[in-house]
């Protein structure tokens, strides 16, 4: 690993700690400010398929399917 990558990894780790700190403190506004306004945050529903058939997830149903608006809503309930 070169020096640049080490520094990038370190910075990213620090960012995650900062995010976790905001969430631990229930500072959702602070956490929210970290997000890009165009964020798309999705988890497709998994499906069991036989053999090597892929994709093994759905392209039209999600366990969550969030953007800034729904994230804002969900973090204020």
């Amino acid at each position, binding site marked *: 690993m070169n020096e640049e990558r080490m520094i990038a990894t370190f910075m990213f780790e620090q960012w995650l700690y900062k995010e976790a700190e905001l969430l631990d403190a229930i500072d959702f506004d602070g956490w929210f400010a970290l997000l890009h306004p165009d964020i798309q945050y999705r988890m497709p*529903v998994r*499906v069991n398929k036989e053999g090597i058939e892929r994709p093994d997830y759905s392209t*039209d*149903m999600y*366990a969550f*399917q969030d953007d800034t608006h729904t994230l804002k*809503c969900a973090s204020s309930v």
Partner: protein
Amino acid sequence: MTRDLAGYSVIVSRDDSGNMNAFYNMCTHRGMKLCRADKGNKGRFTCPYHGFTFKNTGELIGVPMQKEIYGGQLDTARLSLHKVTIGTYKGLIFGTWNETPEPLEQFLGDFKWYLDLAVGRAEMEVMGPPQRFVVHSHWKIGSDNFVGDSYHTMVTHGSIAELGMVPNATYSKKGYQVYTSHGHGCNIGYPNPDFAFPEELRDEYKANLSPEQYELLGSLKNLIGTVFPNLSFLVSHTKVKGQLISNTSIRLWRPISHDKMEVITWLLVEKRASEDWKRRSREAFVFTFSPSGIFEQDDTEVFTDITAAAAGSLPFKKNFTYNYTMGLHREPETDFPGPGTVYADKFSEASQRNFYRYWLDLMSEPEGGAGK
């Protein structure tokens, strides 16, 4: 497709002549599971253990090296897959291990009038695969919640009213509570100043429903019900991103053990609704009722804690009980157009009492009794 029926895997498939068949998902040779996919398109199933091949009608049609190793003596006719009794209503497939069950239409009885509003008001289609998630809850808590518990809404989901997604904290009281024979029941949120469904489909609703059902649909705010024992449905009308939208879903509370269940939830949309309406309905569904849904998360937390509190022998030793007396003092409505026993206003536990009464009836039947 494969589904679970009372703890056992079942294959449901359509054969060449278009008939629907259901079988125990177990090879009759040595018991291996035949099919491991959720769904697919197959005319035959080959067992992964020794390669017995069955047609999607259940017949055993192929045994590797049959002549040589069985000397032509294997009676394949006796090795067909074990059949499961199924019946369909408005596209829903019901199954039972009982070989001579009460006819499905009779089992659903008067409750069809209400179920129709959710699944039979128009030609409906399932959007995507079902949501599936495991909750550490006893399954009856889900059925109980959907059969008649609107009372919890203003507290459990209080924060959602604060968001302005639903009118106000007591919005959940207005409407009706209904129960019918066989333990079925529902709560009807009514009236609604807005039409919860695609405006352009009014003619289709009219054609599929009776005038009384259509009238109710016209001002329906929500509909939450349970088909005994563990199939529930929900029509919910909420404001998402400043726009009102409804979503219709059906769900199974699949028991895994006494303190664990899998929730399987399907989103239904009107086939002839616009793509935009379908997309917004899915967005509302995922946001409210799904593993990440804001209502769902409120509910499952309660279900989990109730289950944990009921664990072990202490509650039995001490004879701890719950209270189901709400609404005992009230008289049913006499002029509601739909069948069953109907109470004006949803805050009652009459539906839950009806649900458990039927459950107790079945549980107290002598062994070898009629069964359902």
